[in-house]
């Protein structure tokens, strides 16, 4: 796996550690930690999506990369909103995963772009914890294939 979710989570955790000379982390590090936590989940999904279409022994191929890169942040967020709504029948694991992904998506956007973002260490630590648990939920649920099929092949709208 080229982009390891576990390594991104490890990186995020390191970024929450206090600097020796100030006794606390930098705001810029907490921003990057939030972003890395979101991307850990994103890459876990992108990898699972590509693995579901292209054989895992072809991970170095262009077709694998094409499926991997087809995962769109906004489409993923929208699917999570649909999972949270009443029209899709998913169990608690995917619903909790979707709740976390939507929250992480907003936090990542704020951490990356918002000059008014408040860098809080407690929030960053718990955001990383949430990302870690979200990946576990996603990897363990039997409904993963259903979720990925909706992400990769959205149902046609009536014309």
């Amino acid at each position, binding site marked *: 796996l080229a982009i390891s979710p576990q390594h991104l989570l490890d990186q995020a955790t390191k970024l929450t550690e206090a600097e020796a000379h100030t006794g*606390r*982390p*930098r*705001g*810029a590090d*907490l*921003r990057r930690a939030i972003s890395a936590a979101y991307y850990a989940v994103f890459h876990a999904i992108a990898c699972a999506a590509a693995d579901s279409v292209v054989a895992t022994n072809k991970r170095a191929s262009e077709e694998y990369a094409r499926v991997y890169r087809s995962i769109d942040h*906004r489409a993923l967020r929208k699917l999570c*909103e649909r999972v*949270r709504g009443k029209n899709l029948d998913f169990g*608690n694991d995917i*619903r*909790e*995963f979707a*709740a*976390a992904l*939507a*929250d992480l*998506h*907003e*936090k990542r*956007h*704020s951490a990356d772009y918002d000059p008014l973002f*408040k*860098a*809080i*260490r*407690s*929030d960053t*630590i*718990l*955001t990383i*914890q*949430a*990302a*870690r*648990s*979200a990946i*576990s*939920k996603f990897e363990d649920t039997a409904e993963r294939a259903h979720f990925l099929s909706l992400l990769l092949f959205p149902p046609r709208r009536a014309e």
Partner: protein
Amino acid sequence: MLKKSDIDRIAQAVARATLDSSAGVESTSTIDSQGDPALKITIVLTPGSTESIQGKDVLKTLDQVQQRLQEEGEERFPIIEFETKGEAPVGD
């Protein structure tokens, strides 16, 4: 659209049930990454509790706050943040 007092009450009830260490809740209106109206809900934790909260409990908190607000007719997405009581943001 729920009143702030109702939003705070719902979030506080969820936080008390899912986290052992919730000291309070504060909510404000905001705009999400899509430009839509949203909520920012800050769950204030008791000092020293952050390290003991597990990821599954955070997930349950996010899930339940979103669900309860939705059930009460709130359409704005709640962005949930945590802070320890008395904790100040750190600068860049």
